[in-house]
């Protein structure tokens, strides 16, 4: 062994202090806590959908919420597991959740090809509001998840970037979803897909730079 390696090892041993191992469950708690906090902010500032407030929510609300939460949970689970390298678990379940979520924009696209929807059905003004608020919510959740991930040792920063982006986008949209009163497939296919897509691209571009070690 070289002298350099010897003295380095001595130095590292001197610095040694007990550490608590990183637990992915704590990362999920961070994500869950932030999602609930963002939902609370949406509920108190914007309010909740009337049908939900009256306890008679439309079936599309449940479908949309379920798909977004499942996508967010599956991708967040895969992301937090990247904090511990080399454990041999690929955690590819999120791909199926993403494929399921893609049914909304796919259905909207097929329906649009059959019957071109009127511009009013797309509600551009409300849609942009949906995009902006979902984006802000995603940013809050994604920031917390990125900060938590930075404490670990992610060895695939690009994959982590995609996963953080998709997870925070889906959960951010799920948070806005409790206010959004629209149920038609055109609106959901467009305005609930865009925040997830934008957040995924943002995550891929920004997160790897923040979590490299």
């Amino acid at each position, binding site marked *: *062994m070289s002298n350099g390696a010897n003295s*380095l090892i001595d130095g590292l*041993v001197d610095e*040694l202090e007990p550490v608590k191992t*990183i637990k992915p469950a704590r990362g999920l708690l961070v994500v869950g806590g932030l999602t609930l906090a963002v939902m609370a902010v949406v509920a108190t500032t914007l309010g909740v959908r009337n049908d939900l407030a009256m306890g008679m929510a439309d079936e599309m609300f449940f479908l949309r919420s379920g798909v977004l939460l499942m996508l967010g949970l599956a991708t967040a689970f895969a992301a937090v597991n990247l904090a*511990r390298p080399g454990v041999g678990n690929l955690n590819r379940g999120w791909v199926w959740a993403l494929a399921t979520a893609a049914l909304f924009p796919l259905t909207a696209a097929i329906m649009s090809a059959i019957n071109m929807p009127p511009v009013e059905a797309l509600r551009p003004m409300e849609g942009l509001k949906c995009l902006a608020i979902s984006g802000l919510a995603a940013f809050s959740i994604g920031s917390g998840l990125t900060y938590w991930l930075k404490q670990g040792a992610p060895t695939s920063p690009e994959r982590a970037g995609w996963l953080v982006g998709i997870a925070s986008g889906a959960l951010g949209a799920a948070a806005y979803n409790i206010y959004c009163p629209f149920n038609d497939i055109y609106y959901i296919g467009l305005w609930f897909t865009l925040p997830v897509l934008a957040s995924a691209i943002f995550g891929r571009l920004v997160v790897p730079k923040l979590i490299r070690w």
Partner: protein
Amino acid sequence: MIANEETMRHLMIKAQGGDKQCYSSLLIECEKWLRRYYARKINPSAIDDLVQETLISLHRKRASYDPTKAFLPWLAAIGRYRWIDSLRKIYRHDHDELYEEMVADPQEESVSAKVSLERLLGMIPEKQAEVISMVKIEGLSIAEASAQTGQSESLVKVNIHRGLKKMSALIESE
């Protein structure tokens, strides 16, 4: 002789708890293991630095080891990350400066890492390797590489993209 997986795992668990003697033994074993790991990947003159950088990473990220899992795959993942990172730094290095260093002193660190790049370039199709060398290492423009190789400019771009993608995949699968 390098300690086996079970011994290293046991030492790492003790080290996470703050046992300095076990940690010292572990680092000595890891140093030997990493030396052998990198021997097939980089120029021998660059191994010392990379091993030391990896030991520092192991120290900083020791909380990320899951005590219920095998130790060596974790160490290999840390080692591979440091290796890829060292190659990435070379990629991002100013091309002219890299070229000057290669000419000035073939033993320079950046040249050592380039040995790995040359090896990877040898593992992808010739046309892709040729344009990657010209544009990404020698610093030629797309138009110049196109003129020299006879490939159209768009084909040069496609070949660079595909070649880099294959090289990344090769590194990941190492």
